[in-house]
């Protein structure tokens, strides 16, 4: 088994020692299956994200790791030890809660030192103070120790919650939608800060989020969840380029979907025919066979928009134009295929000339840009 240095891609957890593992962990609430036989490993030092809509089971997975939920069946392992029914207070993991859950009756410093003070034998006061100061420095809140929690802004409270968790040097740091309550700019800053912190500390981070941008920008690996199961797991790039289903393609990045029936398949190439009789070629990875309902997924940046008609181009009308800085996002309408999203790079737009709403245009894409996916 080979150990990778920090910061390298950890797309394959099998190549590094596991810090946590789920073995067929299932959680039922009455009739609801919140976690459906989850089996996966988390590599040491990895930044792993659970991504999915609310109710997909990502929070349940995190809570089983923290010890707040006991699986109905199956096992949870932490650092090689079975912890399935070990209570939260005995587990070497710490959590950053969604709404921070900071203790309102304690100062910032006492909040951060809380975990250290629970250790037995109790560390002496000077040592706690020293570690708290270092944690404050790490989250750039030096000097804020004596403050009251309600004197801190939302962003500062977020940092206190982070410091309160990392000061204990947990084996795994659990983050439950930690940035959801912050405004966009602050969120961006914290994303970068979290990533930097994770590399510095070398602690395994497990993040739960419904925000794809958050997951894509920070994680080494993302598990996409749907109805209590992991439908795909892989590096952000892998998920973006090779989604296994329409659900995943829809959740990771933006995409255009053209629904139809798979007509022919030969190896990794196939053809989809729409209800209106249009046929498109595309790459094919899944186990789909001819006759199956399928969807052709094309990423907006892979569609070209031109004024002049060319061979194989489809005529469209421009509906809307949004300027995004380095890109311009066009919404165009095709008579049979419906609305398509097209992302045009600044240079390409300058070369071709811009479009205004109402203009006629033609869209093209390379056959290999289309990805034929199963509908589920």
């Amino acid at each position, binding site marked *: 088994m080979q150990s990778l240095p920090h910061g390298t891609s950890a797309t394959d957890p099998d190549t590094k020692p596991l810090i946590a593992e789920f073995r067929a962990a299932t959680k039922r609430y009455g009739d609801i299956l919140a976690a459906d036989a989850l089996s996966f490993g988390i590599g040491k030092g990895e930044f792993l994200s659970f991504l999915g809509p609310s109710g997909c089971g990502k929070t349940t997975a995190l809570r089983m790791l923290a010890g707040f939920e006991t699986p109905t069946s199956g096992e949870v392992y932490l650092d090689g030890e079975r912890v399935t029914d070990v209570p939260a207070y005995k587990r070497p993991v710490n959590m950053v809660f969604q709404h921070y859950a900071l203790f*309102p009756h304690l100062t910032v410093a006492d909040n951060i030192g809380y975990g250290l003070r629970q250790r037995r034998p109790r560390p002496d006061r000077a040592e706690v103070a020293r570690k708290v100061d270092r944690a404050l420095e790490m989250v750039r809140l030096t000097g804020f120790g004596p403050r009251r929690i*309600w004197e801190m802004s939302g962003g500062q409270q977020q940092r206190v919650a982070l410091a309160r968790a990392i000061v204990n040097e947990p084996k795994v740091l659990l983050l439950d939608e930690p940035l959801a309550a912050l405004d966009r700019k602050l969120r961006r800053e914290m994303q970068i800060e979290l990533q930097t912190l994770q590399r510095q500390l070398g602690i395994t981070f497990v993040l739960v989020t419904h925000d794809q941008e958050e997951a894509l920008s920070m994680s080494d690996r993302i598990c996409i969840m749907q109805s209590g199961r992991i439908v795909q797991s892989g590096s952000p790039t892998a998920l973006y380029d090779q989604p296994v289903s329409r659900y995943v393609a829809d959740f990771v990045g933006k995409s255009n979907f053209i629904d139809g029936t798979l007509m022919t398949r030969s190896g990794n190439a196939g053809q989809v025919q729409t209800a209106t009789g249009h046929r498109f070629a595309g790459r094919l990875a899944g186990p789909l066979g001819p006759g199956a309902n399928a969807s052709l997924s094309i990423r907006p940046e892979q569609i070209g928009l031109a004024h002049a008609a060319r061979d194989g181009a489809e005529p469209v009308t421009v509906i809307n134009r949004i300027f995004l800085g380095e890109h311009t996002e066009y919404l165009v309408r095709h008579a049979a295929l419906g609305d398509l999203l097209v992302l045009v790079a600044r240079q390409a737009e300058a070369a071709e000339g811009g479009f205004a709403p109402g203009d006629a245009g033609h869209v093209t894409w390379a056959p290999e840009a289309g990805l034929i996916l199963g509908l589920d």
Partner: protein
Amino acid sequence: MQRRLTTWLLLAPAGVWFAVMLVLPLCFVLVFSFGMRAPAGGYVPAFTFEQYANLPARGTAFLNTLTLAPLGTLLSLVIAYPLAYFLAMRADPKWRTTLLILVIVPFWTSILIRSYAWIFILGGQGLPAIIEWLGFGPVRLINTPFAVLTGIVYGYLPLMVLPVYVSLERLDKRLLEASADLGAPPLRSFLQVTLPLSLPGVATGCMLVFILLMGEFLIPAMLGGGKVFFIGNALVDLFLQSRNWAFGAAVAVTLVVIMLVTVSLYMWLMRRMGGQRDDMALM
């Protein structure tokens, strides 16, 4: 202008009520307390500290009140806290309202009738008879401090349960998860998180019960049988029986001062302890 007028008009009934029914009588009592008893009872104007100097004559009443009121408050708290904790943290939410109503139900019957019940329970034919039958010898329960304590704890328990319940119910349960996550076992989480955060409710309950107990006279009169009397009983006696208004006024003023000091102490403690803007307790 219009708005100010409306404000004043709306405040007028309460203002007049407090002025006529509270402030004015208090002024009378204060003036009376420096006066003298008329030979046939009543009040003769004077300015003397004689009545205050005479306070030790009613020392037993003060002693009883100042020991049994705090003790009763403490006992109520000890019994009420676990009950409130169960209602707020453990009880099935489906049953919570029903259980809360059950806590309040005794209030639907007059305290007078309920105290009569206690006379029978603690009297010769009640508990003492059972204790004697069990072979523990003859005991006297009625007309003892124990009987008075039982009566006041029983009577005022709901007033302690409710504020403590409210503070526990409002407690963010995620804080307990955070505490567990940081390595604190359940008992330590309780001591370090639940208890401190429920203190405003505890203080409010204690204040409510303590203030009412300081002025209590019915329960000592009924269950103390004239042997265990409170300041309230002394006042009834001084104003209605001995008709010594001046001395009664001095006792009353002293009681008010003791209460004022206690409440001020409470407010000061609350401000020091809590300090959280939205968590300031009642009063």
